[in-house]
């Protein structure tokens, strides 16, 4: 409730934010992960650099592919018709983050930078092959979402680097969905499953699957993808994929006092089936 003393600075541009970060300090976006940690004194940055109003970080644009500014809020993303058509699973995941107040403040950039394993958007970003665009003192670089998430609360971001935007391939011709088993206490994900299916007639030409919540980071699930690809997504294929997904995540499982690893692993299979059903709408 009572954070340590800190200075506050509002950055007007990416350049200003990066320059300030060089002197130490932490970026503040929606504050919905950072401020709770500060209030518990688990984190005590000496300076907060508010990036929430930097013009270059705002907005969502659709120009063949989808570009989402790092400061776009969960609510904006969930409501965006471009996101709904080009990556329905992301709109859905952002729409399931926390409650309305959280979605109005929390940003996608802050969400992935924080890399809480129980977050929703990372799972979709990994499944759909998103790219994270990063700016640092030494210039810009892009990292595939799958490589961006490294461990619990750990990403490929170097000190002082800023996420500027996310790029997502146009997925409007796929069937994609995100389903979540919310933790009854926090409503973060016990397990979240994102699928992105390209159908060719009645058969699944390509399947992208990722699991989060149950794992220390969002995990791309090659076994489950193989089990679905080339099938008609019949019950046998779904059961095989549900089994395979448990193996895909076996090395990355996490649990808590109420929902242990083994349970989450099992639920990943159940929710994979639900995700495929949801994708097929």
């Amino acid at each position, binding site marked *: 409730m009572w954070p*340590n003393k800190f200075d506050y600075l509002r950055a007007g541009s990416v350049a200003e934010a990066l320059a300030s970060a060089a002197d130490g300090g932490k970026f503040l976006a929606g504050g919905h992960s950072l401020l709770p940690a500060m209030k518990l*004194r688990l984190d005590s940055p000496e300076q907060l650099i508010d990036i929430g109003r930097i013009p270059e970080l705002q907005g969502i644009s659709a120009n063949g592919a989808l570009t989402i500014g790092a400061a776009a809020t969960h609510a904006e993303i969930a409501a965006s018709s471009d996101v709904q058509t080009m990556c329905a699973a992301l709109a859905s995941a952002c729409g399931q983050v926390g409650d309305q107040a959280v979605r109005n403040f929390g940003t996608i950039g802050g969400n992935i930078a924080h890399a809480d394993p129980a977050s929703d958007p990372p799972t979709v970003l990994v499944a759909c092959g998103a790219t994270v665009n990063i700016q640092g003192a030494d210039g810009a670089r892009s990292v595939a979402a799958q490589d961006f998430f490294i461990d619990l609360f750990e990403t490929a971001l170097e000190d002082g680097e800023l996420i500027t935007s996310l790029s997502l391939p146009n997925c409007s011709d796929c069937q994609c969905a995100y389903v979540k088993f919310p933790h*009854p*206490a926090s409503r*973060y994900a016990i397990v979240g499953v994102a699928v992105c299916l390209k159908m060719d007639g009645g058969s699944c030409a390509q399947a992208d699957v990722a699991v989060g919540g149950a794992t220390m980071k969002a995990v791309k699930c090659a076994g489950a993808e193989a089990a679905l690809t080339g099938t008609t997504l019949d019950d046998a294929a779904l059961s095989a994929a549900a089994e395979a997904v448990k193996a895909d995540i076996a090395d990355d499982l996490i649990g808590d006092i109420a*929902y242990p690893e083994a*349970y989450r692993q099992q639920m990943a299979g159940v929710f994979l089936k639900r995700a495929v059903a949801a994708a097929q709408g």
Partner: protein
Amino acid sequence: MTTRIFGSGIKRREDPRLITGEARYTDDIKLPGVLHMAVVRSPYAHANILSIDSSAAEAMEGVVAVYTSEDIGDGLAGLPTAWLIPDSDLKTPEHPALAKGKVRYVGDGVAIVLADDRYRAQDAADAVVVEYEELPAVIDPEEAAGEGAPLIHDDVEGNIAFTWAPFDEEASNAAFEAADVVVSERILQQRLLPTAMEPRSAMAQYNAATEELTLWCTSQNPHIHRFIISAVTGLNENKVRVIAPEVGGGFGSKIPCYPDEALVSWAAIKLGVPVKWTETRSENYLITIHGRDHVQHVEMAASNDGKILGVRATVYAGMGGYLSTAAPGIPTILHGLLYVGPYTIDSVYCKSIGVMTNGTPTDAYRGAGRPEATFLLERMVDNVAREIGMDPAELRRRNLIPAFEDGHDVAAGLTYDSGDYPAAFEKALDMAGYGDFRRQQKSAEAEGRYLGIGVTAYTEMCGLGPSQVAGAVGFQGGLWESATVRVTPTGKVQALIGASPHGQGSETTLAQIIADELGFPVDDIEVIHGDTTETPMGWGTYGSRTTPVTGAALAQASRKLKDKARALAAHLMEANVDDIEYADGSFSVKGSPDQAQSIQDVALMAHLAWNMPEGMDPGFEESQFYDPPNFVYPFGTHIAIVEVHAETGEIDLQRYIAVDDCGPQINPEIVAGQIHGGVVQGVAQALCEGVVYDDNGQLLTGSMMDYCMPKADMFPNFELGETVTPSPHHPVGVKGVGETGTIASTPTVYNAVLDALAPLGVNQIDMPLTSAKVWSAIQDARS
């Protein structure tokens, strides 16, 4: 005849200020020059304090002082335990406001910091260096009472604070020996966090010139707080003023007097400036009392044809590191005396062992002892039904006490006031469509779907209570209430009460009682509470007692005023009192209706006193002390219908039916609100709430990230029904309804889930029934 205000579901007058954020809570009150107190709290559940170094903290900017128990010395007496249950070998270990040499739970206060700013106070608290020698900790009450458990207080041998077993054990054994069947279960009543929306807060101001201390605090019973603060500080009680401003819920957690309230008082006296402390939510979870925490070994005896012959239990009740204010009374008097429930059970036995542990102290939490009793009874009734192959509703039907209007003695020693349990029971079964449901359940099972139904018949003892009984059971206070109805010359009413409502809507309900008795418009009646200097003595708001006890005092005070008004009206109209008729706030003379005196006219004339009858005093105000002749016993039947998803263990609560009888309902909307809230809290115990400590006594459910508060989307629309059986001894016939929802709903939902799981071979799961536990239980049963 206008519509009667009694029984009308008018809107709660409290709500506009609460909903718009205009209400003023303790923390909203700002005093110039106030110092903020932060408490250095033990990170260990059990440890010796080797040293405390506050020098760095003292040197920090804005820090005025750092104090430890050594600095306080005998400036503060230990916090008293105020429920000294008899015949139980009760030990009351010292509870110092700050730990002396040893800490006994995580959060136990070690030092206080006073600073000019809340942030600085916290910084300095973090800078106090305390060296500890960690000791082994014990959390489970049964384990703490066992061989080899770490000793928590030197003067509480074996950690056993009391053993309460007032019933005839031999008779109980005989009943069990004669029975056809005996079922048993080990039931865990897990610890719960009361989680009032407003955390606790206290601010003290001492006036050295008048030697008066004012303490604003989050209290359900400011007069009890005054009593205890006066005792621990040594100030005369008439020099202590306790004010409970708006209080944002309590559920029992704001009954006790805590160290923090004593500490701000002491520091304000010591430093001569006001001192304020407001807990954070994390502190709230660590240090504000927890509820429940029983390990129960329960048995029920029955005949093969479904007659319940006896119930007995050994209960290990976790008291935590210290005995909180009312703690010993909760798992004893408020628990074991309830073992008969609404049934014709002739033999009860309860042995309740109060055990010191390294958990947060426990005390009364909504229902306090009675939910733990109702749960074990209802659980065992379902177990008997399963054992003898009888439908659980039918088993209950066969054992319900038949209707009675004025007193019924039961084997646990209580005299129930009135009840018609079968009526409420059959009504609830009808509303649920019980028979149809059993058929649906069968066909669902054939499709691999698992539906379940839980039925709870309950009665409970509330409206605490006759003071003579309070004395007999060791409660260190009375349980009467007093109230003054004061009418101003312009005919506006101030009702001053000693109780201290904090969210129940009592300002509305109590105004309705007065309006009904005296004919004043309800909007002309203010109910004033929460200030020991403004209000008459009272013992507080808990145990569903404010409407039954304060309400009775107000009704009787109003009746005295009405008698006076009638006599004065007769005098003014030059008529005989016997010829005065009263309707809707107006007195008229029989046969000449155009001549009338309104209650407001009479009030004015009583104040003016120009023309009083011989011997009548001026003024228009009456006070009443009311000591209830008995408790009140609301009752009813609750039914839940659930579906359990075997694949995930998720529980879908599909229907919830509650038929409650609290006598005539003064305000049905408020009654419904109390039932809704109570049901939600009780269902949450069954499904999601539960404190978890690790083996070292660290609280793992220290925030709402892990401690699962119920959410609105877990619940269907509740289906409420009522029956109306007035209490024979109450002036307006009402019974309490603040806790019935919590008391009835936990076993209802629990039994429904276990009913659904029966075909899968699952017989028992410890609460809360999380999907993970349900799923594991299904896997275990299958393998």
